[in-house]
């Protein structure tokens, strides 16, 4: 079962886990990415493409499902404005055993940082607004999976 979503609503991690868990799995890995309150950040805004962002997430999910033996996969990314501490992204991957679930989760979070049409814009308490620049380390991590 693959579930992919792009949404402006807050991500309900507990509810997503319930949906993901229907049926039961031997091993489930979870990654939750949240908005950090660095340097006086007031708001994080995620811009997306109306069609290609979700398509990109779905493609990554299918690559992961082909590469590892997974019994369920959930990939939810929030878009729009969000505050410090809120969840930006949720990855859930389940398999019969931990190694595949953990590997698939790490692959998905690494690759979605470099392959999916999403852009972060930061607004700080002092009024500064800045688009986030990609980190060199993100590409290095993503390329490990090539």
């Amino acid at each position, binding site marked *: 079962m693959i579930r992919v979503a792009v949404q402006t609503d807050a991500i309900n991690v507990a509810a997503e886990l319930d949906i993901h868990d229907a049926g039961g799995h031997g091993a489930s890995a979870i990654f939750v*990415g949240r908005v950090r309150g660095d340097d006086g950040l007031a708001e994080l805004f*995620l*811009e997306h*493409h109306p*069609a*290609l*962002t979700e*398509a990109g997430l779905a493609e990554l999910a299918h690559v992961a499902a082909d590469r590892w033996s997974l019994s369920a996969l959930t990939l939810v*990314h929030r878009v729009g404005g969000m505050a410090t501490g809120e969840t*930006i*992204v949720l990855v859930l991957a389940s398999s019969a055993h931990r190694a595949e679930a953990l590997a698939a989760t790490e692959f998905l*979070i690494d690759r*979605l*940082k*470099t*392959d*999916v*049409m*999403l*852009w*972060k*814009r930061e607004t700080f308490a002092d009024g500064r607004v800045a*688009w*986030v*620049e*990609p980190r060199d380390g*993100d590409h290095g991590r993503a390329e490990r999976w090539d």
Partner: protein
Amino acid sequence: MTLTISYFAWVRERMGVAGEVIDPPADVTTIADLVGWLAARDDRGALAFAEPGRIRAAVGGTMVGPEAAIGDEIALFPPVTGG
């Protein structure tokens, strides 16, 4: 050739529009050509496309490199920063 082009993030902000329909000259055949043409077209384009190395593209929904051929539906945007 008439193209529908959409812009995202700071490319969109610098262009001042989310997208437009354009009809570039016949010698614009690749993404790199298109970016160069837009940069030379007006001040907004010069600002948005001053550094072609920081521009990414999708043609018909597929991410492509600068040497890819242009198509009917093009998106131009900065490197992605999701996750």
